[in-house]
């Protein structure tokens, strides 16, 4: 894997934020809807579901799905 500065930076950032007890995508997906409803109702979703929040920061696929979910919810009320 060639390490250009951009990739090295992304890798270092990923390693710096790596935790021993991260949840994986299935667990995030299972509670992503609850996280979204908390967030949109003005409740502290990050504090109430910290592992979901952390996973959304790390996993680009889950983050993209979550952002799409928020867009859908904002459009439909």
């Amino acid at each position, binding site marked *: *894997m*060639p390490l*250009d500065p951009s990739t090295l*930076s992304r*890798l270092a950032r990923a*390693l710096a934020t790596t935790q021993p007890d991260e949840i994986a995508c299935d667990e995030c997906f299972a509670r992503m*809807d609850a996280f979204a*409803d908390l967030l949109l109702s003005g409740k502290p979703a990050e504090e109430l579901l910290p592992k979901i929040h952390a996973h959304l920061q790390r996993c680009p*696929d889950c983050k*993209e799905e979550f952002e799409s979910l928020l867009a859908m919810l904002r459009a439909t009320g």
Partner: protein
Amino acid sequence: MLRWFRRSAAPTTNDEWLDALRGPDRDQALAALRPILVRGLRAAFRDRVPHQIDAFAEDVAQEALLKILDHLDAFRGEARFTTWAHKIAARLALTKLRRKRWENVSLEDLTTRDDDGAPRPHPSLTDQAPRPDDQATLAHYVEVVQQVMQQTLTETQRTALEAVMQHDMPITEVARRLGVSRNTLYKRLHDARKNLKAALRERGIAPEEILAEVEAR
């Protein structure tokens, strides 16, 4: 008790949705849910599917309705039912879009060639002409990280890491090519990150140092 469709345009509570979708009012409930999903899909994906958004939203909504019916028992009741339904539709939509975007790209292509198909030259840190002291420090980090990756990770882990980190291939698509679930690949990449981090620490290097050095340039 009057059933929901006799007194309102659509179910409103989670229990009403579940009762309707599990009972004789299923078709009415599906007919009420479909336009909600279509409206959400159109809003969320119109930028990504500008010319066929109506057909795309209808297709995804139809697929989502079938999936929702098959997975009603998975609804945990921690969110509004419609939020849960939107979540399923969002994942289906993105799965389609990711598959289409990456359909002609293999992991082998990605890790040996540039996006335009040309053999990829190995990028050099000297390309940005850093100061000599920066260059030496960064070159040291690069050498150590590459060495540690070679020693610590499997070839599959290195390939997956490169596809995700360097080429922005979705984890879902990498996993599909490797014949594993996205959840499994995430766990393997998590193991890879933990092992890399530990191996760097054994050599006295914290990832934060590398990050600071790269970002200072």
